[in-house]
């Protein structure tokens, strides 16, 4: 157990992270290709939605990852702050970029799904709106960290902001939902998927989800290595 502690130090973490990257990147690439094939070619056209539903193979994992990475980021940032573990703070910085990217992707694919399905690019429904606010929270975190020159201060300030943000997320979600029921006019409910899902659809969705998760692990680890290298270089030059 005790030898795990050494990975809290960036110097020891870097080789481990570099070695792990291919273990996630290669399966991610393979699954992505497989998922694209199953999702775009093998899965049949839905008799209700047509082909638009294929967008959901990316949209749903992207939304999940965007949400999950924010919480994970807050946890890492908090650990980094409380235990003065620099590697953990660097992990939080690394997660923020990928999380923001997936949140943005979720919004974009959501719009591309919404236009043919709901007839509008953007609906102020509860889920879309909370995802938008989540993207703003990510942007605030990234902007704050990139504006602070001292990396230690950036880590800690980011941790406070991430913690405040993560406490706020459920409240934001609740408030947006309440707002949505207040203004019934804007509500568009997603047709609940009671229609039997064809197996290739389910398989495509599972494969694409796995590919996205593996991809984000690989990318986050890789950026973590970049951040460790950057900071080591800074220390070496001064």
């Amino acid at each position, binding site marked *: 157990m005790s030898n795990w502690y050494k990975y809290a130090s960036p110097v020891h973490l870097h080789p481990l992270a570099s070695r792990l990257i291919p273990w996630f990147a290669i399966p991610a690439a393979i699954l992505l290709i497989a998922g694209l094939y199953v999702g775009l070619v093998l899965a049949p056209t839905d008799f209700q939605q047509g082909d638009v539903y294929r967008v959901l193979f990316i949209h749903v994992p992207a939304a999940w990852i965007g949400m999950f990475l924010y919480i994970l980021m807050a946890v890492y940032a908090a650990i980094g702050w409380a235990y003065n573990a620099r590697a953990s703070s660097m992990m939080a910085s690394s997660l923020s970029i990928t999380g923001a990217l997936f949140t943005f992707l979720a919004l974009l694919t959501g719009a591309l799904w919404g236009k043919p399905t709901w007839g509008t690019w953007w609906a102020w429904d509860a889920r879309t709106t909370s995802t938008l606010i989540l993207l703003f929270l990510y942007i605030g975190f990234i902007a704050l960290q990139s504006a602070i*020159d*001292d*990396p230690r201060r950036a880590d800690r300030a980011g941790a406070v902001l991430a913690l405040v943000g993560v406490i706020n997320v459920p409240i934001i979600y609740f408030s947006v939902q309440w707002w949505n029921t207040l203004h019934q006019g804007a509500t568009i409910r997603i047709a609940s998927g009671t229609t039997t899902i064809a197996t290739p659809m389910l398989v495509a969705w599972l494969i694409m989800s796995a590919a996205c998760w593996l991809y984000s692990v690989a990318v986050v680890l890789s950026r973590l290595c970049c951040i460790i290298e950057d*900071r080591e270089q*800074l*220390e070496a030059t*001064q």
Partner: protein
Amino acid sequence: MLETTHLKCVRGNRTIFRDVSFAVRPGDCFRLTGPNGSGKTSLLRMLCGLLAPASGSIRWHGASIESLGEEYFSAITYLGHRPGIKDELTALENLRVWCGLSGIELSHHTAASALERIGLGERMNLPARFLSEGERRRAAIARVLVRQSPLWLLDEVLTSLDRTAVEAFQSLIEDHLEGGGMAIVATHQDLQLSAGRSQRIELAA
């Protein structure tokens, strides 16, 4: 007694000093010298608990200053590089507010007599923005008079003071040391003290 062991200071990614150890006993006055950028201000801010040392420890009567917290803060008076004088308030109000923030109710009379002693008697009711740099400095120095704290941490307090003010200030420190007080003064100027034990900490660039 204030005791530091192997203090190390890192700002940004630069190590400014390392292995700074000394002990300040009642009656000691430490003069802190060193070229610009050698970390005099950082060391003083560390001793205040404003800046956490990258490694090493600072102990006050044997207990680390982080664990003492507010108890330690009541034992120190820190005059920073930037004096913390509000332009909109008069010297008198500045002094009383400062004491008030420390939880001490300072009467108008006590505050006025302290300002008189430091040579601001006539101008204590002017908003601080009409005071000269040296007078603002004096208004800050008046704080050490009204709060009887055993340890003074003074950062470049002599800058822009005229000769009479410097002499007055030296006699203040002498009184303080004779009464068993301690002082750490970062300054480029010489201090000629006839009381207490003078020591020096030299920080290298």
